[in-house]
């Protein structure tokens, strides 16, 4: 293998390694984005007088948060699917050679994130935005 090709191969392996390391955090990053945007949207609505505004006949703030929740859950579903794809056999309690452990961790972290997103969305259905 030529020097340039070897360097390219090394670089590619390095990128793959970093991707495997970051993958488990992806689901929780989606949770953080959902949390941050929901909080910012509600704060903006209260500060700028949109508390009673409506969108397509529905109260604006809960509608926005439900929309954000749907997007977040969809993204988390994709993360779980990507984590589990391409791996033969069941992914159980880890310790296995990589990438099986990081994939397992990515899938379960995304599942935890989905639970946290749902937890977070529920108050929007029952609590007044700016009360």
């Amino acid at each position: 293998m030529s020097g340039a090709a070897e360097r390219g191969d090394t670089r590619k392996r390095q990128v793959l390694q970093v991707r495997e390391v970051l993958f488990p955090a992806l689901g929780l990053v989606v949770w953080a984005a959902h949390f941050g945007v929901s909080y910012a949207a509600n704060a903006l609505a209260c500060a700028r007088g949109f508390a009673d505004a409506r969108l397509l006949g529905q109260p604006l703030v809960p509608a926005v948060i439900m929309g954000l929740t749907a997007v977040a859950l969809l993204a988390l579903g994709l993360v779980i699917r990507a984590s589990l794809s391409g791996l033969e056999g069941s992914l159980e309690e880890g310790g296995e050679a990589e990438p099986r452990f990081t994939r397992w961790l990515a899938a379960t972290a995304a599942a935890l994130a989905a639970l946290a997103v749902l937890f977070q969305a529920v108050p929007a259905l029952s609590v007044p935005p700016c009360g």
Partner: protein
Amino acid sequence: MDTAAPRGTTAEETPNPLPRPPEELEQLRRIWAMPRGLALLTEYNNSLIGPLYVATALLFFLLAGVLALIIRAQLAWPGLTLVDAATFNQLFTMHGTVMMFLFAVPAVEAVAITLLPAMLGARDMPFPRLGAYAFLIYAIGGLSFYSSILFGAAPDGGWFMYPPLTSKENSPGINTDMYLLGIGFIEISAIAGAIELFVGIMRTRPPGMTLGRMPLFAWGMLVFAAMVIFGFPAVIVASMLLELERALGWPFFLPEQGGDPLLWQHLFWFFGHPEVYVIFLPAAAMVSMIVPAMVGAPLVAHSLVVLALVGTGFLSFGLWVHHMYAVGIPALSLGFFAAAGFAVSIPSGVQTFAWIATFAAGRVKWEVPTLFMLGFIFIFVLGGLTGVMVSVTPFDWQVHDTYFVVAHLHYVLIGGMVFPLLGALYYWVPSLGRPLSDRLGRWAFWLLFLGTNLTFFPMHVSGLMGMPRRIYTYPAGFGLELWNALSSLGAAMVAAGAAVVLLDVVLHFRLGGTQENRWRAGTLEWVNNDDYGTRSIPRVRDRYPLWAEPELARQVEAGGHYLPFSATGRRETLVTSPAEAAPQYVAVLPDPGWGHVIAAIGTCAFFYALTMPLPIAAAVSGLVALIGLIWWLWQGTDPAPVGPHSVDIGDGVRVPIHATGPVSTSWWAMVALMLVLGTIFACLLGGWLFLWLVNGDAMWPPPGQGLPVAGWGLTALGLYAGGALVMWGAARLLGRRSRWVVRGALLLAAALFAGGVGADGWALWSGGVRPTLHAYGAASWAIFAWQGALVAVALLMAGYTLARSLAGKLDGARRLTMDNTMLFWGYTAGQGMVGLALLHGFPRLFA
């Protein structure tokens, strides 16, 4: 667990043949021998710095404990006047501040610096002088900070220092500045340590120790490091803004000038709530290491515990408003934070059940560490349950700022951190030297366990009866006498327990000698090690390598595993890939030197001179720190090629001696630093947007102030982009074109950046934006000031790179300095462009 042997070898075959030539060990001993006399100060080896770090953290625990005893003596009975109200304010502020900033966080970092290299089979951490620098500024700065109470100059606004109580008007002395500058720079120590740990855990694990096989303490410290990188910048920003307000009159928190005290609370608690988990998660990870050894069985649900650590680390960033339920935040927003509070209790519960199940799965050894583990579970579960109670908003309104909260936080922190730490002391000391006394350990445990409960359980009652926090005395007749007397009695018991631990350490602890695997633990820190780490670097095939391969310790100690020699004749460690821990290169470590010592002394002097305030002394100290820093870098980073180009480390694995670019540890550290800088910048942008939200569009900009001039902004944008591009080009040309072309490009890039920052600032000034009149100007200039500071650092780095080139220390192969400078320039240009987009674009589009 996967016990398949990598690379086709069997357990009997070692990566390097045995026996080893005796001169190998002699060479390792000679290379890693510590300097003697005064020069010992220049040593960075974790086997010296780690124990010193732990000892210093425990010293601060005792010092902060003394303050707590005075507090409890004052409150033992109504109407006592042992101390006056002003002194009492300093006492509780210093108690909380020292415990949180000078004991809890440094203590877990200290344990990690002490143990992780051995646990990971590394010879040392990848940036040992950074670790030594972090320790020195912590020790020198911390002791200077603590001594402020002797002169009545200690902070007195509570450990979270809310403005307006801490504004210049209400706190005109230097007490608040002591906190803002003193603690602010000690956070630099925490961040430096976190970067060191992050890179060390990701890149210096032994071959075969995949992420799935990594010890849980390393996982805990990895999450810790990430949380420090993302959480601590918020308190640094808060401190900077309040100091700017106090020193220069930039009104961030003064409502009459558009500021808002709630900005401080948001920034502080964005750091402050994760801080609890920053302390707890490493301690929980210690428990996850100790419990399996004390029952002789692997941790139940190991992978779920990893998930719990990572999940808690993330979710804890959604809890900061827990501390702000009573400030008038919209109901639905409170609901988000309450929901996150419930969500974070799930991973905490997972860990607790895993420990209980592990106790049930094995045969319990009723030794001192076991007692501390059980005590931890009891106290921490109680603290966790009251934590769920106070995350319920209406309940929190009832108990906010009462002793109920004091009880809760002490149950969480003492249960969640102090008990695991003391258990860890009794557990791991035999791996470092002579063990502690079993008899004294049992006395210490029972005194501490009973004393903690006697001190803090009654506070639930006094809190529910309405006793507020931070009062220096209280009247008789409200039914508070009994509960306070019990608390004070308990505090005396805790003090007795701490004294027994101290006595035990003084009488029995001695470093060095042959370490015994006293608890028959399964992880690598129980392999005999010396100043050079383990004799050879182990090949790992299991989460509990010493259990899976009973011969492993003997083989490693005989030098049969990887790199049982020094390939270059210098200090070095093996660097492996982040996920699979495949060997990548041998990193040469620097020799001991004075640079980081001088930099540490200069840094401390700089910040304390600023506090006084003594501007000339501060400038001189800053210069000393800078000289020390440059000397430190010049001596030991990016060394010239030494020894062979590559080396066979064993098992037929050949790795290079030198690396640059993304594979190098310095690239990883630079990326981690950029994450810290980016978080600081994000906090500044968030502050600007928060103040815009509370002021309203009509006041952004307020009458009398304008928008920054767009033309100058566009000029700055172009110059920043141009500077980064030229720097990128210089890096590309290094080794391909004449050195003078590269040097010319460096100078051109510097000129473009200098022009960019000039245009950036002039855009604000010529647009009529003024920092002292209104929060709009203050927030805008704060963003610019941060950008200006980074440009100054970028220019310094370019100058340093130029000097390396002129000294013949920079070429196509020896290019770490250039690559790091290029990365930093790219970040600085990107940050500048985002800042310009906000300051120029946002008000024009939305406000």
